[in-house]
């Protein structure tokens, strides 16, 4: 029987074990690669002798990430973003694996950026915008060129250059959350988690200062410590008194607790089926016709009124008001009343409190269920 002697690939004692390939170059494959899942292609030239390798394997350093192929090039994946790697290649056949090739030059793995961290979303103050704060993550080895911001419910995808971003085109009264993704030359990152929800509100110059619905009858109600920050005030009330009457009457106002004869008023109104007017000077209160419903009128009926007090914080002007008030009990003329009132307080003091009465200040209690609201207007 003839004996066939083989040759070793590298002078060792493994017959037909492949010779090491000749290393080529490594190239970063960053496009669309997820953060910390980079890739590189590694080229090589197979040895011209020493077996018939079926598989070539490239191995990174550091990390020992590997990729295999039957021919050049080999793609290695799973690389950490922004990390420099070198690669060697081995050849494998049925008899074993070659020694590693020499290493490539170092190549930095790049990917899309890390997902940003969402911050606080807040109403933008315009009724159609919201501000969205976020913190950038790692760039993925390639500079971040911008951010993509989306809303839920979906509107448009918008581009941001930095945080915070003002998202536009929203609908007032709708609740939104936002997500942000970072963009670099390789693509777009995963999205951040969703922000807190925010509902854009149309800006207003009308502010609720104080509001109460009486839980028990009261001789009067006082709005005190009224801030001086507004241009005017508006009282919106629905009042009913404790009297045994059945028709609409009047309410009364005093300012800053002043009970002296410094008030005056004038009224035009529908009273008992005819146009009426009256006025009075040197009064101890301002009377607002139609602003109070008598206690024995149709149940569940309160008299509404709207009273505007302008320049209330002035310290150089007397204070004036106009009031629109009425009451209707489904009784027809004689039981319903509607009218306009003007009022004057001959004081230059800034108004810091308003006391509301039904009837005259020595009259009746304000009944349970009456609602009194004070608004400030800028």
């Amino acid at each position, binding site marked *: 029987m003839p004996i066939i002697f083989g040759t070793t690939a590298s002078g060792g004692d493994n017959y037909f074990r492949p010779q090491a390939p000749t290393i080529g170059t490594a190239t970063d494959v960053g496009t669309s690669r997820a953060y910390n899942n980079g890739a590189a292609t590694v080229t090589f030239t197979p040895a011209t002798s020493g077996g018939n390798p079926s598989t070539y394997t490239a191995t990174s350093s550091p990390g020992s990430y590997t990729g295999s192929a039957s021919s050049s090039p080999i793609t290695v994946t799973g690389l950490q973003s922004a990390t420099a790697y070198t690669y060697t290649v081995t050849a494998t056949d049925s008899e074993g694996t070659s020694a590693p090739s020499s290493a490539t030059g170092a190549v930095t793995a790049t990917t899309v950026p890390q997902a940003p961290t969402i911050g606080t979303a807040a109403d933008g103050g315009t009724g159609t915008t919201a501000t969205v704060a976020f913190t950038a993550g790692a760039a993925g080895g390639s500079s971040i060129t911008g951010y993509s911001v989306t809303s839920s419910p979906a509107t448009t995808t918008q581009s941001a250059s930095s945080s915070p971003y003002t998202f536009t085109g929203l609908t007032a009264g709708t609740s939104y959350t936002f997500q942000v993704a970072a963009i670099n030359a390789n693509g777009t990152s995963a999205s951040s988690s969703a922000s807190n929800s925010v509902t854009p509100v149309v800006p207003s110059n009308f502010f609720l200062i104080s509001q109460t619905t009486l839980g028990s009858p009261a001789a009067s109600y006082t709005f005190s410590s009224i801030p001086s920050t507004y241009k005017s005030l508006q009282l919106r009330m629905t009042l009913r008194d404790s009297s045994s009457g059945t028709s609409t009457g009047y309410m009364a106002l005093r300012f800053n607790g002043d009970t002296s004869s410094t008030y005056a008023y004038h009224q035009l109104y529908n009273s008992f089926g005819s146009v009426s007017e009256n006025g009075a000077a040197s009064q101890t209160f301002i009377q607002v016709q139609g602003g109070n419903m008598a206690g024995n009128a149709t149940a569940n009926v309160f008299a509404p009124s*709207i009273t505007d007090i302008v320049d209330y914080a002035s310290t150089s002007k007397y204070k004036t008001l106009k009031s629109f008030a009425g009451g209707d009990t489904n009784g027809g003329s004689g039981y319903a009343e509607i009218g306009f009132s003007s009022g004057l307080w001959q004081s230059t003091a800034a108004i810091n409190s308003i006391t509301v009465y039904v009837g005259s200040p020595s009259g009746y209690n304000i009944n349970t269920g009456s609602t009194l609201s004070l608004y*400030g207007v800028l």
Partner: protein
Amino acid sequence: MATATYIPIATQTLSGSANAVTFSSIPSGYTDLKLVSSGGSGAVGAGLSVIFNGDGGSNYSDSCIYGTGSTAAVSSDKNVYGVNSTAGYVSLQSPFLFSMDIFSYTGSTYKVTLSQFADDNNGSGKVIATVGLWRNTSAITSLQVQSNGILTGTTFTLWGI
């Protein structure tokens, strides 16, 4: 800073003549409502009436004071269908401005309104102030303005206060 309010809830602008304009699914988060309209009517004396929650019963009343430029007068209705906010009066195609405040619209009391109407046709017109009542304790979730031939381009905005 106190709570901002007086927020627009919805606006409708008529793209064609209409006899009714409805606001439905009114949110409950406000104390009062305010309806503001500017436009015109295609019919003389059509008036503007407002009903709530589709109630077609005679559960409304109103009382007004008005001026015509030469006369001041009053008018009242009881057990009628809708709050008549214009004393049955609108000038033909004259521009009008109308507003209605609706108080405690989600409360458990009967619903009361204050409205103002003005139109002027360069010599004729009217100014009207009206108090209205809907004898119902339900929260208001919809309202409808009814007239006859409200003109194209007329706008209605509902505000929450």
